[in-house]
Structure formats: structure tokens, C-alpha cells
């Protein structure tokens, strides 16, 4: 967080059918709808999140991710980051305050991998949902489905990983927590952190630019992950794989798809890291175990089904 980029802030996901999507993200996953706007976008948040929204759904002709945003500690840091991006040769776009309801100005840019990212400092502080700020209870009553705890991270697929690493580490202040190296020592997967989380954003090498692999949401326990899998079956939701464990990060996970084909993850646990930790390395020849620690082979879908 050394440049003031604090944490994941929001992700805007394109969906083919808004009603089906809202049902998936609220009834099944337990996000809470907090608003809609005139453009037809739906704003959602998880119960422990303090700002008004972390997921925005936009109806479109093709699914995928429009952008992911990180919250910055304050406006002066945002201004400095903007200068640093420009100095690094990155084109930045100004998105005015209020373009998203109750969100301050955003600075949007494209990473070499082809993905759009945003930085912002201000968003309406609503507090955690369903519990008081003073003498809070352990959890709120009235949550649906998986009751996801927070929007945790995204995994993006695209080329130019080295240039993207340079941008995220040297300009935005992330550090490398985990990586996959091929036989030549080239980094083909990078897990970047702002915090003690194993990743706040991750990239895997892929020839097409700007592809979305998944948006990930945190759960507390393995029992919650199992329960999530049960709910996936009860709702006949498309499952990718799991419940299982990752080799990378050692998180306990399930991958599944929203009704438009966007991949979601729910997971619990996993390793922590600090900036003085050397990156954890997996070798490409062990990629099966790195992704699916128990199966130790990849399924075709994981590498190729993208939106």
C-alpha cells in the first residue's frame, strides 16, 4: 500500500440478463442491492463492506468485466498516482464524481494486459450492513444464500505480464506475493498484493487481451464453502470445480458461473504474506497441482472459458 492504493474498491460486470444476474448475486451469493441508476446499472455490496457498493452489474450484449477499481487513501494520493501514471506513459481518463451514484471522481487507465482499472478516493460510507458500529453483534440477520463476506479480488487473463507487473509494482505500489514460472524463468502468473492477502489482483498469461477469468468473494470457513457448494446444486447453478484447495495461496475454493457465464469464486483461508516475504513460486510443470491441489490436473475449462 506504499503509494496509497489501499484495497479493491469495486468491479463492474457485464451481464446478458439483469434479472437473472441480480437473483444470482443476491439470492444465491448474499450480496445486498443498494441502488440502481438511470443507466440501468445495479449496485451491490457484501455485508462487511463499509462503502455503498463493491459490485456493479451492467446489462450488455456480451458478458465480461468492464473494469476493476482500487480505493486510494485520500485525494492527495490520488492526484499523485495520476501524475505517476502519466509519467509512466499511461493514458488516463477522468471519470467525474457522480458518474456512479455516490462515488467520487475516478481515474481510469488500461493496463498493458488490456484490462481497464480505476482509482478513486471517495465513496459514500454506509458502514457494515446489518450491524451497528458501536457494540456490534457478530453477524447480521437476514442475509441470503452464501452470505459472502466481501468482494476479494479478480483474476484477469491477458498478455504483457511483465509490463503489467512493472505498472502495478513500481507505479501503484503492489508487491508480488506468488507467481508461476515456466521453464525459461518467465513469469506466466502473478499474484499481486497491497496488503497481507495472497492477492488483491492476479494475472495469468493469455494471448487475447483484456479477458476476465473470475471475480472472487470471501467466506469464513470450509463449512461455509461446503454450504456454498450445496446452494450451487440447489439452484442448479453452473459449477466449474470444487470444493477443493488451490496450490497457489492454498485457499479453499469453489469456482462457478453466473447466469451470463462470468466465472465467480468463493473461497476461505489461504496463506498470508508481508512485503518482506519472498514470493512463493510454483513451476509451470506443476500447474495442475498449483491450481487444483487435490486433483493435481487442470480441467480444460479453467484455462479457456473466459468472458
Amino acid at each position, binding site marked *: 500500500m506504499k503509494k496509497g492504493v489501499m484495497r479493491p474498491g469495486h468491479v463492474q460486470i457485464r451481464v*446478458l*440478463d439483469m434479472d437473472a444476474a441480480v437473483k444470482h448475486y443476491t439470492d444465491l451469493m448474499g450480496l445486498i442491492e443498494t441502488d440502481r441508476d438511470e443507466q440501468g446499472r445495479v449496485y451491490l455490496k457484501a455485508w462487511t463492506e463499509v462503502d455503498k457498493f463493491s459490485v456493479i452489474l451492467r446489462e450488455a*450484449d*456480451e*458478458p*465480461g468485466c468492464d473494469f476493476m477499481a482500487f480505493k486510494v487513501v485520500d485525494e492527495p494520493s490520488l492526484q499523485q498516482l495520476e501524475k505517476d501514471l502519466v509519467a509512466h506513459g499511461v493514458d488516463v481518463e477522468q471519470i467525474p464524481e457522480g458518474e456512479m451514484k455516490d462515488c467520487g471522481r475516478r481515474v481510469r487507465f488500461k493496463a498493458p494486459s488490456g484490462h481497464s482499472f480505476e482509482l478513486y478516493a471517495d465513496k459514500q460510507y454506509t458502514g457494515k450492513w446489518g450491524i451497528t458500529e458501536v457494540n456490534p453483534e457478530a453477524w447480521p440477520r437476514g442475509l441470503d444464500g452464501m452470505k459472502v463476506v466481501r468482494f476479494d479480488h479478480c483474476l484477469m*487473463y491477458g498478455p504483457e505480464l511483465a509490463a503489467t507487473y512493472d505498472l502495478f509494482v513500481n507505479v501503484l505500489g503492489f508487491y508480488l506475493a506468488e507467481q*508461476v514460472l*515456466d521453464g525459461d524463468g*518467465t513469469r*506466466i502468473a502473478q499474484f499481486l498484493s497491497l496488503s497481507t492477502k495472497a492477492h488483491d489482483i492476479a494475472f*495469468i*498469461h*493469455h*494471448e*487475447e487481451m483484456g479477458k476476465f477469468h473470475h471475480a472472487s468473494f470471501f467466506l469464513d470457513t470450509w463449512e461455509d464453502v461446503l454450504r456454498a457448494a450445496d446452494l450451487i446444486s440447489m439452484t442448479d447453478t*453452473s459449477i466449474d470445480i470444487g470444493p477443493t484447495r488451490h496450490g497457489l495461496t492454498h485457499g479453499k475454493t469453489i469456482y462457478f*458461473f*453466473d*447466469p*451470463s*457465464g*462470468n*466465472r465467480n469464486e468463493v473461497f476461505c483461508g489461504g496463506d498470508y504474506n508481508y512485503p518482506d516475504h519472498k514470493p512463493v513460486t510454483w513451476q*509451470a510443470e506443476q*500447474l495442475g497441482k498449483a491450481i487444483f491441489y487435490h486433483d493435481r490436473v487442470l480441467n*480444460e*475449462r479453467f*484455462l*479457456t*472459458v*473466459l*468472458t
Partner: protein
Amino acid sequence: MSHAFEVTEQRSGIRFHCEPGQSVLKAMEQQGLKCVPVGCRGGGCGFCKVIVLSGDYECGKMSKVHVTPESRACGEVLACRIYPLSNLTIECRPRESAEMAKQQTTTKSMR
């Protein structure tokens, strides 16, 4: 079973039942068959693209990247999004080598 439609995949010759209101892909998966690749099952990734050679069906929303209006008009659809109204004959073409290379390029260095 008497209400079920019959779906034939022409290339493999595989035939399977599909209940009304069930997607062709779901019926295929349920019967343990593999004549059409399975992706997201949500009309978003393009993996289960087939051509309907004959028969009537209802069609759900599909990503326009994978099925343009022009190709839709030629009967190109995603198997996860078609619900038979009569017996169907479909064809699942092996994906073009260029497209396959594009789709699998994550793993050139990873395989």
C-alpha cells in the same frame, strides 16, 4: 420420457433425449455424453457452439461476440441456450485451428 424430444449430433451420430424446458447441453451432460464441449453453460463463453440443421427450438440470450445476429440467422447457436420444441439435428464442428490456438494460448507455455 414420452414427452422428450430427440436430439441428434450429426458429426458423431450421437443421439440423446431432451426434456421440454431443458437445454440441449444440459440434456447431453446429464446423459454422460461429450459430443458438444461444455463451458460456462450460460451463453457467455461460446464453447458449446452448434449449428441447428433441422427442428424448432426456443433460444435464450447469448453473447453477441460468440453468436452474431448474422450467424444466428444461419442457425448457429449455443447448445446451452437452446430448448427444443421438436426433435433437433445439430452439428458441432471442431473449432477452427486458429480459434483453438487463440483459445488455448494461455497454456502454450503451461502445457
